[in-house]
């Protein structure tokens, strides 16, 4: 028991099925009589649909049905929704143009769905889709935010004039202007936050199934939040009663945000299955995933930092243009606003901050939350401009940060951008990271690199993130259409084993182990006798799912609340068994005892008695189970310092990561092995953003040029180093486990750390992500030319 509880690196319970090939991912599931869907997609970025001829397709072998947007419209299917309404500077709601599950009159990005074929096999459906003839009137597209905001730009939606979704601001403009007026020094920076494709290794997949006898609909789907999908499908898109719909998200092969959203294809499977009264399955191929999975990031930002003569931050102002793509995805509007501007204080005491964000429609794939969602973009702004400021002031970047950190005795700390930071020890993390990175030895390592003709750079990123999303009343006041609490249910069996039901969802995070550790530790049940159930709306109480590093801080807290209820009832049963009064019963780790005596009964006996209540309190219900819902009091604020050290080959522009140090403060840690794994994976995605990855559209045609793994550069084993991971633990004061969340930290910290190292090596801020060998080489060459000219 002692080596399986809280704080132990327990090996994962879920691994056996995955290492033996016995997982159950959605595409592994097949239903009797199942049909297959294949989508015909737009080859144009922007076009008017003049006509669609499906007559040949309908006669192809195996074809059961061919549907277009007209069929969807005839059934009065609702459009896909955005669940978070952002209000602009004038208090007007954002523009959320209609998003049909199959396009009706216009296609607005390459890959937009134009028709669907349902056939007896996947290849028959695909063959038939290729025979559909569509007459398009091709329109000139716009793919980037700067072009889209220009007058005369193509208009993506008639009801979003100027392609503007919203023009929003946050913070105290007057106070920030005043701070800049008295500044001794102002640092300015232009930043591009490159568009990324999330690329979980499992492509999206869905099966819709309808049982006419029961009038129930079942959806198997690759989702991070099955209840949210059920709510959206029922209440907004298909108009079905929630109690007649079951959504199952079985084993899910990674999400990183992209599987939060309600997409067109899954919705079409459900709609078609009900129409045809047969199961309908669709599985994305990888190019479809690049074309239709919501992308991440894509910001263009100008930022300015005002400082006094000692480098004390006085004010920060930020102007950002955020690309929304062709339609507003499920939570897209919140990402560059409330998940972005509220984090612009970083770890610092900057007293005045003002941010303006223009969200813009373009003829590209919709953009929504991707690992970190807004917080990587905020961290990139803060940590790049702080680094640039240190260089301008000729000050040690670590010292400039130290001078401006929120001190450890200032918590809870109210920032000027609404957040109240819960706890932290920012200087301690920085000192530890600098020591682990051997900052003292950097000068000699740089000299050694120079002897080999190579450049060497050292980059720090001190990040903060807001996790444990989120207090329902707060997000409701900011426009969220949902509450962001979480549910848990603990159910004892008569023989002492336990089911734990959670409304959060694991798609790689290891909930089946971490949550079992908590319950094992608190209820004294052996780990192998705890089964964690998630991902099925028919089994699990309504829950909000997994994203924003919320599962442990919110879902784990709900489990603790349920544990408390179990113990409370257990005490009554134990008191009866021990012939004591309830007030005299103590409880510790699975054992009830009478205070001051040697009388005790174990949890297993209490559970058995609850189900076989022959000798039982007269006024007590049988059974031992408890449900709990937990709505967090605040966000949690994990923070830390990542340090990248790079060596650059001046001849090729190739960047090698020589060292990576991460010191993170996630509060208390339940399973260090799993937490470190989350950090590793996050860093890899952040390194991918900074060095390798980038979604590229052709500006003229709007074609997606990076629509396969041949063209989009995913990080591979030989692109990455091993990481040195350290932790400090400052417990979160407002949740029962003292935990903060760890899923996104690496992806938030890594891009700025790496770009600070690369710009340090190159001696210029003028390079954008991804810093490919070509771009780095061009910077080196242009500097050589400039030096020669002097």
């Amino acid at each position, binding site marked *: 028991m002692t080596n399986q509880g809280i704080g132990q690196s327990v090996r994962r319970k879920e691994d056996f099925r995955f290492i033996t090939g016995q*997982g159950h*991912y959605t595409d*592994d599931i097949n239903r009797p009589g199942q049909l297959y869907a294949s989508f015909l997609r737009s080859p144009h970025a922007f076009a008017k649909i003049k006509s669609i001829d499906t007559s040949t397709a309908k006669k192809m072998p195996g074809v059961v049905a061919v549907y277009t947007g007209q069929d969807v419209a005839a059934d009065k299917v609702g459009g896909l929704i955005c669940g978070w309404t952002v209000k602009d500077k004038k208090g007007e709601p954002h523009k959320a143009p209609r998003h049909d599950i199959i396009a009706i009159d216009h296609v607005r990005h390459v890959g937009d769905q134009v028709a669907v074929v349902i056939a007896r096999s996947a290849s028959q459906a695909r063959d038939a889709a290729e025979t559909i003839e569509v007459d398009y009137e091709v329109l000139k597209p716009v793919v980037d935010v700067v072009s889209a905001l220009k007058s005369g730009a193509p208009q993506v939606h008639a009801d979003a004039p100027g392609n503007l979704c919203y023009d929003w601001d946050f913070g105290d403009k007057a106070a920030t202007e005043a701070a800049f007026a008295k500044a001794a020094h102002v640092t300015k920076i232009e930043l591009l936050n490159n568009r990324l494709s999330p690329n*979980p*290794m499992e492509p999206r997949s869905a099966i819709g199934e309808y049982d006419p006898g029961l009038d129930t609909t079942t959806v198997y789907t690759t989702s991070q939040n099955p209840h949210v999908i059920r709510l959206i499908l029922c209440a907004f898109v298909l108009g079905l009663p929630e109690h007649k719909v079951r959504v199952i998200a079985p084993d899910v092969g990674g999400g990183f945000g992209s599987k939060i959203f309600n997409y067109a294809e899954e919705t079409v499977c459900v709609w078609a299955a009900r129409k045809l009264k047969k199961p309908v399955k669709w599985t994305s191929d990888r190019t479809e995933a690049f074309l239709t999975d919501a992308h991440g990031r894509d910001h263009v930002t100008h930022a300015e930092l005002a400082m006094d003569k000692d480098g004390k931050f006085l004010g920060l102002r930020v102007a950002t243009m955020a690309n929304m793509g062709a339609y507003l995805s499920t939570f897209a509007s919140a990402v560059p606003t409330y998940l972005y501007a509220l984090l612009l204080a970083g770890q610092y005491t900057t007293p005045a901050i003002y941010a303006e964000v223009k969200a813009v429609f373009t003829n590209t794939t919709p953009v929504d939350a991707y690992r970190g969602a807004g917080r990587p973009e905020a961290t990139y702004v803060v940590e790049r401009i702080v680094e640039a400021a240190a260089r301008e002031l000729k000050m040690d970047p670590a010292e400039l940060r130290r001078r401006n950190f929120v001190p450890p005795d200032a918590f809870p700390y109210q920032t000027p951008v609404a957040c109240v930071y819960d706890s932290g020890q920012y200087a301690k993390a920085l000192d530890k990271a600098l020591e682990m990175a051997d900052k003292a030895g950097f000068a000699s390592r740089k000299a050694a690199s120079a002897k080999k003709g190579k450049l060497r750079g050292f980059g720090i990123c001190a990040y903060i993130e807001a996790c444990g999303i989120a207090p329902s009343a707060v997000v409701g006041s900011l426009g969220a259409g949902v509450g962001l609490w979480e549910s848990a249910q603990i159910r004892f069996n008569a023989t002492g084993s336990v089911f734990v039901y959670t409304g959060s969802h694991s798609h790689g995070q290891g909930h089946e182990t971490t949550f079992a550790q908590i319950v094992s530790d608190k209820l004294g049940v052996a780990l192998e006798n705890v089964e964690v159930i998630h991902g099925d709306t028919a089994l699990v109480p309504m829950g909000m799912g997994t994203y924003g590093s919320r599962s442990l801080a919110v879902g784990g807290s709900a489990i603790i609340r349920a544990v408390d209820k179990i113990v409370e009832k257990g005490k009554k049963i134990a008191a009866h068994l021990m012939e004591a009064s309830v007030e005299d019963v103590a409880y510790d780790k699975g054992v009830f005892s009478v205070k001051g005596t040697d009388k005790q009964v174990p949890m297993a006996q209490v559970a058995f008695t609850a189900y076989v209540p022959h000798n039982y309190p007269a006024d007590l219900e049988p059974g031992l189970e408890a449900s709990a819902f937990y709505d967090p009091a605040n966000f949690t604020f994990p923070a830390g310092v990542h340090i990248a050290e790079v060596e650059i080959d001046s001849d090729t522009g190739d960047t090698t990561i020589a060292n990576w140090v991460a010191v993170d403060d996630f509060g208390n840690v339940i399973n260090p092995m799993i937490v470190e794994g989350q950090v590793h994976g996050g860093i890899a995605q952040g390194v991918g953003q900074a060095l390798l990855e980038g979604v590229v559209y052709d500006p003229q045609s709007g074609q997606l040029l990076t629509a396969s793994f*041949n063209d989009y550069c*995913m990080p*591979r084993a030989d692109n990455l180093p091993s990481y040195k991971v350290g932790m400090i633990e400052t417990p979160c004061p407002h949740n029962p486990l003292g935990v903060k969340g760890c899923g996104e930290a690496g992806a938030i910290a890594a891009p700025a750390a790496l770009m600070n190292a690369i710009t340090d090596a190159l001696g210029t801020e003028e390079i954008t992500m991804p810093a490919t060998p070509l771009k780095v080489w061009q910077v080196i060459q242009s500097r050589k030319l400039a030096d020669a000219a002097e």
Partner: protein
Amino acid sequence: MTISVTLIVNGQPVTRDIEPRTLLVQLLRETLELTGTHVGCDTSQCGACVVHIDGKSVKSCTILAAQAQGAKVVTIEGLAQDGKLHPMQEAFRENHALQCGFCTPGMIMSAVDLVQRNPNPSEDTVRHELEGNLCRCTGYHNIVKAVMAGAQAMRG
């Protein structure tokens, strides 16, 4: 039109009539219901579909089932012997080398082949050899550790 193929999968001879264009991975997943072999891309880049054909790792999305006529195919389901996990499977679990588990079968099959060809690989060799297997979750750190540990266990 269909054609008949016969091959030995995880030690069992199987004969099936299939469409000539059927990929090996489709035969494994859809006809034989061996769904441990995964499909993560359509350009032979991700390696989620790696199986062993006559002892060598092959991306099963890249060959037609008909090309495997007469071959001995081992999938992730056939790696454990007599109820005992292969040392590489054990090493992946012990070193937390998987998160979502989707790339894991292909990763393990590639790693076993790598070690069979190279019983004592360096970290650099492991990283280079795994270039054909994408993982989006782990950042590869623990996969590399697991392969090194699995290699040691396979050496005995």
